[in-house]
């Protein structure tokens, strides 16, 4: 009788989205995804649910978060194993330390490996984060129980760390194998992936069930692990219902605000309520063309989850103006050459000011 395990991680309940509108809706989407994961686990008749850390963000989690999580765990009813991550480390006041934690939930509260037999020939090793830096979890680990040995940990596969992502509890596939683990159920990277080596799958990131930040690559779902006599199989199951989309909108030649709205509307035509779009406007618009980000977001974002506008348009031929043998030319040339991060905006202000146009901030 094979054992089925549903693995999730990085829900980041109670996270904040300061970089995009619709934070409340996105948090609700994360909570909804959590419920769908439990639904999936029940539908697949999973024997256990594992959480690879960052289930919530401790800075903002409160009683309501605990109620939601515990209710979902209780609804699942079968064993739940949680390896706290760097955002939800186990501490005296963490939600995992509450006395109303459902009895079917086991939290790996130590920054060390603890083994839990899940059945004959199947052992789950768990490693939890605490507020202290955990170091390299697999560096000195030895998994020697007979049969399949699963490692549940929140950490970074050093060989596949996304750009700009902070590494925590780093490890490599070689370390996982050297420790004796059959497969590492992990979390930390929001883009899901399954790492395989010659012996088969070795590391699995389910990804965050819903995208958290723009630019995350990979799947957003859960891993369904089947452990049978011959070994393990890993299936990535999508869960996400929202998307974070970066969208470039060329506004070259747009001569008025209506034209800008038309082009932006056309660019957003394929997106819907589950899409959170960051539209970058670029190109040279006619001088005097108003590009008001707040107005555009309001006018064009009604059918979307949220719309944010990044204005990179230029309302003048700066290169041409820079050649003028006058103050405007010299000012524009100087600002074009400046490395000051405020120079592009100052450049637009100068051009508008000399042209006598409204300076749109």
């Amino acid at each position: 009788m094979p054992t089925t395990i549903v693995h999730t991680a990085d829900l980041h309940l109670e996270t904040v989205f300061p970089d995009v509108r619709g934070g409340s809706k996105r948090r609700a989407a994360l909570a909804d995804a959590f419920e769908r994961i439990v639904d999936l686990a029940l539908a697949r008749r999973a024997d256990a649910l594992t959480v690879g850390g960052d289930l919530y963000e401790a800075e903002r989690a409160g009683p309501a978060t605990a109620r939601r999580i515990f209710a979902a765990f209780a609804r699942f009813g079968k064993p739940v194993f949680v390896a706290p991550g760097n955002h939800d480390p186990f501490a005296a006041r963490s939600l995992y330390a509450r006395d109303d934690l459902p009895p079917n939930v086991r939290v790996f509260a130590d920054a060390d490996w603890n083994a839990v037999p899940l059945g004959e020939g199947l052992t789950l090793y768990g490693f939890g984060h605490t507020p202290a830096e955990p170091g390299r979890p697999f560096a000195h680990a030895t998994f020697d129980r007979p049969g399949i040995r699963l490692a549940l940990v929140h950490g970074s596969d050093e060989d596949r760390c996304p750009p700009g992502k902070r590494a925590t509890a780093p490890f490599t596939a070689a370390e996982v194998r050297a420790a004796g683990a059959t497969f590492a159920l992990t979390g930390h990277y929001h883009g899901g992936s399954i790492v395989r080596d010659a012996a088969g799958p070795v590391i699995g990131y389910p990804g965050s069930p819903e995208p958290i930040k723009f630019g995350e690559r990979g799947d957003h779902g859960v891993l369904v692990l089947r452990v049978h006599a011959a070994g393990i199989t890993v299936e990535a199951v999508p869960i996400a219902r929202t998307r974070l989309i970066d969208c470039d909108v060329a506004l070259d030649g747009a001569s008025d605000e209506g034209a800008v709205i038309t082009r932006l509307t056309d660019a957003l035509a394929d997106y819907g309520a589950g899409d959170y779009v960051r539209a970058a406007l670029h190109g040279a618009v006619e001088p005097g063309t108003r590009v008001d980000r707040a107005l555009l977001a309001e006018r064009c974002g009604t059918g979307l989850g949220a719309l944010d506008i990044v204005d990179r348009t230029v309302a003048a031929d700066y290169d041409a103006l820079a050649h003028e043998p006058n103050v405007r030319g010299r000012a524009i040339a100087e600002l074009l050459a400046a490395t000051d991060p405020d120079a592009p905006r100052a450049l637009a202000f100068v051009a508008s000011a000399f042209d006598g146009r409204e300076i749109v901030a």
Partner: protein
Amino acid sequence: MRLRRLTVAGFGRLTDRTFVFDDGLNVLYGPNEAGKSTIARAIVASLYGIAGRGQKEQWRPWTGAAYATTLVYELEDGRAFEVQRDFDRDAKGVHVYDRDGNDVAAQVAIGKAVAPGETHLQMPLDAFVNGSCVLQQAIEIDGTTRNGAATIATSLARALDGGPKEDAALGALKRLEDARRDHVGTARATVNNPLRVARETLAAREREAEAARAQRDALAQTRERRATAIEERNRLAERRRAAEAETRALRAAELRSRLEDLRTYRDDLGALQAERARYDDVAAFPAERIGELDAAFSAWQIADAAATEAAAAAAAASMSVAERGELAARRTDAGTVDDAAFAALRLAAEAAEAARTTATAAANEAAAARREGSGGRSLAGIALVVAAVFGVLTIGFAIAHWWSFTEVCGALAAIAFAIVAWRGRERAERARIAAGKQRIADASLTAERDASLAVVAVLERLGVSSVDELARRRERFAELLERSSTRAAETAAAAAVDALAAALAGDVTGSRTERTTIARERAQRKRERDGIESGIAMLEMRRHEILRGQDEFALIAERDELARAGVVPASAGSRGAEEALGRIRELDRLHRDAEMAVAQLTGELEGGEAAVPDLAALEEAVAQARAEVDRIVALDRAFALAIGTVARLTHEAHQAFARRLESYAADALGTITAGRYREIFVDPATLAVRVRVPETGAIEDLEVLSAGTRDQVYLLVRFAMTRMFAEGLELPPLLLDDPFAYWDAGRIERCLPLIAQNAFGAQTLLFTSSYDLAAAAEAVGANRLDVAGTGVPA
């Protein structure tokens, strides 16, 4: 740049006209409305194009001819170009051919616009129009306007600063400052201050988030306290369970002990009951009467001894006949008075005696009082006589008017009367006392008489003379009576003993002593049996103590149940069980307290947790407020950078330009003003032009000069500007559209040589409707072109 030929297919009022220009000064003469300004505009339009639909329509040919021009020019480096423009086709209608006939329009295009003027002169339209062109009599007097034309300072600014707006850099700076004020605010602004509002909003959001965080942390502390309380409660419950187990063990031990006690009780009871059976023969013996028998037996023994002794005494001295008679006599007198009556009688006799004594004493005292009262009667009589004598003498002397004797005798009479009165009162008092004593004596005598009568009555009835006699008779009676009653007492005592002995040992024969002895033995056995009964009763009490109102079977069932539950009886006794029960009660109390604490904290938690705000939403609001502050601060930095850059470059440009312009213009100023003015000054900030007035030596605004002089100065400034803009570049042609309308002939005469000499090296096109000026220019070597085609004045 040298303009060679302008061919106009159609432009404004001009149609199908060609103008050929020379180097140096070209004077284009024509009356008003002949098209001079149109030529100037056509040249500018050929070089730079026409921007905007309004401008384009303004210069559309009146005749409906093709809206096109062709301009041929040469550059300093010898290159020549022909610009053909079809204005109806905009950029597509522009061709720029080089000397070899190649269309180089693409090479002179800037963006979508084809502007060979800008490319070849390296001067934007603004600079060209404001520097090289004086259109429509537009040389301006600084500080005033004429026909809405731009001022020279404005022209300078537009040329120097760039941009389509007349206020150029200064205007741009103002717009930047205004925008900064609108979008950022200023430090002092209280109404429109977005940055301050954003910071206040941020602070408010931060306070809200901090409060929510504190609320959450407080709840966490409450939860910790609740966990501690729960732990304490559970610990107490555990202790209670242990105490309860101990109690059950002690209960089992107690049950075992009690059941063992019951078994011991039963053994003891059996032994006592067997012992008691040995005394069943005395079971009904009335042992309680044995005391009575003993008392009777003792009394009998005493009576018997006394009777025996009396018998012996009687035998030795039996009562005589006289004594028997006396006994009979005494039985009739003394024997009739019992002890109480005799005591009363004796008291009555004593009272009579006492009354008699009192009466005698009182009578004596009354007699004494009466004697004392009669003792002073002589003194009172003498005093009365004396008083009477002196009273008479007083009256006599008074009649004789012997007043001295009268007074003496009067005084003596008064004294004598006083003595009489005093003795009288004293006698009355003594009489009263004597009367009182007499009453007491009388009363005592009465009492004495009554008591004596009572005693006498008794004594007379008995025939006794006195109470003492009666007492002696009573003693004798008692003595005689005792001697006569001893044997009877012995007999009565013996009967009593026999009756009791018959009751107690009726089955026994023998002497009174033997029967009494057997009765006593039986009584002893009965007491022993009663002791056994008491032991049995004690055992019964012990049974009650063991069972304590419970049923033995219930105890056995409870013991067996505990045994089945695996409870091992403790070694401690019931005292340990009591202590354990006390501990349980204390633990129950502590457990209840802990339970209440848990319930209270749970209530606090449930109430508090239901009211915790959405911290993520609050922090997001904080982040958004912070982003807004950052955005405005970034805006402020951008505005500061823009303003600083423009202000600095403006200052630098104006400063340099002003100094150089002064230098350029200074030499020519003396020439055109006939040496009157030689120093020219340009304000770097406003580009206002001033001159030093020789008469006062002061630097004055041009307003103080005549209109013609001002125009001369500004024309000079135009020339200088053109020269300066073209430094190191292609020198543009000067287009002067009737600039001297207000000049007098002398001034024109002084200026023309300057223009004609091409002082600044520029080709000059002078448009004028003044025949004299045209003639004068021609006279100094200018190439004259008649715009109207007549060549002569009307």
